[in-house]
């Protein structure tokens, strides 16, 4: 067995599912964007093209073009929602891509004329830094919650479900041997993201942190450098992409239905949008790693690939617990509470749906849920798409089921004991303060340099004889 998975095979797999996700998002967006629909479709098409290039190219310049293309397209999509946010997002991504740009120049200097696995650790670090901004690695993730909490649902779905994967695809290609730092970053991300998601009160912020947590698994898989870890990472990219897309698309519906995204205010959500509720439950279950859903399998792969390294296997149990906790918490407040607590009479009350979803909005949710189920029930399907031999890891479902039930019991017990883990509302995270500070400081510095450098006109002119004197003395003494 070779040490690395053949990336070309994975490329087709990723590309195929990428296109599928774009189609789902596009279908959903046909009602969401009524005015700018064609623009959005154009952007989606360009996005598809760009990530295709990122996945397939071996040329640095084409890669960079596509990379910046993704930045610009996602910025334009965010621009549909809010201008300032788009500017902030672009600034952050641009800083990241400049690091990447620097990394590529350095790689060229080291003699890597094509995109091939890198040897030098420092170069690997540079690339992780550069790619990390778009992929929301821990430390560079700070843009993710604010952007997700304000951008439109289809855009969030695109960003969280697919755009973040692009960086990991690149890391997979550049670091087939794995990277310890990436490994630990991944581990930290799982817990940090989970914890932040657990304390969130805004649904989309919760989803954003959940994304961070799940990306931790991918980073872990890639960072481990083992075959199982990498296969798991590739599969998890897709599975998480499908799950997150479904969840975010659903969140758009919840937002319109419930006039907001505060999770305590989802009243009788199940009865209003049953399909959406089912797909949300399926999505979260997949994230939790429930049996018979796709996430179960991919997480197990990653766990198998990485458990021998340090005490990761043990830590990952904790990670699953956190995932279960935040997922259960949302499901409790958002969906289950009404089903359990309300009386039968109440339940049969006439449901008034303020925003009835259309077919075009239901179809992506149903397809997403179906895919998650299909992959979960019959995992070889994934390998079939990946065009890879089943690695032969027999993952028994019943021990996992026992684990699942255990976790669920713990989760439910915690919820019951603390009355649903109510946390006070938090402000929506925002980038304004940080970037405002950057701009103010830069202007102050610039202003003081201006005051220093531009004294009166004649002092400015004094530079001329000064430089001449300097050069003339140079001619005489050097």
């Amino acid at each position, binding site marked *: 067995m070779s040490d690395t998975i053949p990336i070309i095979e994975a490329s087709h797999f990723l590309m195929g599912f990428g296109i599928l996700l774009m189609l789902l998002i596009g279908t959903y967006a046909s009602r969401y964007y009524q005015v700018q629909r064609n623009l959005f479709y154009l952007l989606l098409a360009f996005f598809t093209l760009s990530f295709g290039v990122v996945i397939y190219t071996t040329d640095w310049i084409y890669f960079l073009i596509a990379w910046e293309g993704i930045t610009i397209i996602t910025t334009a999509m965010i621009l549909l929602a809010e201008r300032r946010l788009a500017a902030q997002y672009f600034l952050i991504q641009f800083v990241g891509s400049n690091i990447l740009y620097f990394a590529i120049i350095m790689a060229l200097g080291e003699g890597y004329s094509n995109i091939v696995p890198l040897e030098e650790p420092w170069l690997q670090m540079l690339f992780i830094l550069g790619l990390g901004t778009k992929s929301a690695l821990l430390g560079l993730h700070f843009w993710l919650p604010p952007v997700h909490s304000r951008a439109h649902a289809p855009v969030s779905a695109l960003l969280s479900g697919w755009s973040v994967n692009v960086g990991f695809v690149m890391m997979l290609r550049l670091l087939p041997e794995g990277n310890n730092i990436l490994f630990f970053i991944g581990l930290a991300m799982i817990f940090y993201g989970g914890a932040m998601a657990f304390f969130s009160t805004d649904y989309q912020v919760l989803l954003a942190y959940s994304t961070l947590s799940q990306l931790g698994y991918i980073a872990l898989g890639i960072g481990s450098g083992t075959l199982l870890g990498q296969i798991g990472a590739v599969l998890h990219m897709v599975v998480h992409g499908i799950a997150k897309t479904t969840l975010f698309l659903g969140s758009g519906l919840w937002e319109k239905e419930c006039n907001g995204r505060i999770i305590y205010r989802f009243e009788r959500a199940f009865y209003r949008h049953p399909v959406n509720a089912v797909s949300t439950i399926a999505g979260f279950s997949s994230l939790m790693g429930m049996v018979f859903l796709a996430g179960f399998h991919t997480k197990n792969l990653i766990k198998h690939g990485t458990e021998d390294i340090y005490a990761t296997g043990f830590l990952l149990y904790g990670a699953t617990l956190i995932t279960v906790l935040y997922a259960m918490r949302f499901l409790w407040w958002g969906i289950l509470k009404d089903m359990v607590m309300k009386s039968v009479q109440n339940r049969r009350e006439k449901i008034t749906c303020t925003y009835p979803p259309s077919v075009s909005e239901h179809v992506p949710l149903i397809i997403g849920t179906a895919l998650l189920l299909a992959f979960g029930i019959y995992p070889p399907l994934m390998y079939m798409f990946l065009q890879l031999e089943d690695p032969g890891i027999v993952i028994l479902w019943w021990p996992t089921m026992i684990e699942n039930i255990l976790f669920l019991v713990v989760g439910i017990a915690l919820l019951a004991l603390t009355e649903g883990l109510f946390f006070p509302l938090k402000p929506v995270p925002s980038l304004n303060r940080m970037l405002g500070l950057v701009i103010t400081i830069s202007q102050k510095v610039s202003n003081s340099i201006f005051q220093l450098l531009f004294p009166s006109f*004649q*002092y400015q002119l*004094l530079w001329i*004889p*000064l430089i*001449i*004197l300097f050069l*003339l*003395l140079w*001619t*005489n003494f050097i």
Partner: protein
Amino acid sequence: MKVFLTAIILAFTGGALFVNLGSIPDSFLLSHTASRFYREAVVTETGALNTVSAILYDFRAFDSLGESTVIFATVSGIVLLLSRKTLPVSSAGLSLIVKRTFGILTPFVFLLSVYIILHGHLSPGGGFQGGVLLAVITIIFCIIYGSSFDLSRYPPQRKTLIETTGALLFLGVGIIGIALTGSFLGNPSAWRGVPGTLPSAGSIVPINLGVGLKVGAGLAIIFYSMIQKTLKRQ
């Protein structure tokens, strides 16, 4: 403080410059320089006696074209800067005695300038110098007789016309050079005449004339534009 600092810096710069200039060689490092050629062959090659004129209007005539273009540009710039829709005009002049005296003198000024322009290839002088004298006429008009007199006798449109004609004459001679000698501003040997006489030296004479007209009218326009401003209060 500032003055002191400036003086110190300049003193040192001057000292360094002077020291460096000390190593200027006593003679040209090249033996076959253009300057030697000009001195030896100016009469046979151009038919002009005034070597400076020959250089300005024959050997390096393109420089002079550029230079007269610079004047043209300056005139355009100044007219642009000082142009206002209503030009104040003053009719106040100096006393009758001055007016009469200059009435006699002005034609001679004109004659002198024409002489200097036309004899540019024979004696010191040439288009620029004569042109400047031509411009003096406007100055005389404006100061002695008031600018309204200058406006009526020598209106700005006519000055522009003369200036443009001069420029085009220069350019035209250059183009005739292409036709006759094959190169721009070439000096056709057919026009050379006998060295030392007035109709000699080929294209130098018409170019001198063109430059003279241009410089004269140009400087006159500059003066006229500026004096319009200063006389505004009257």
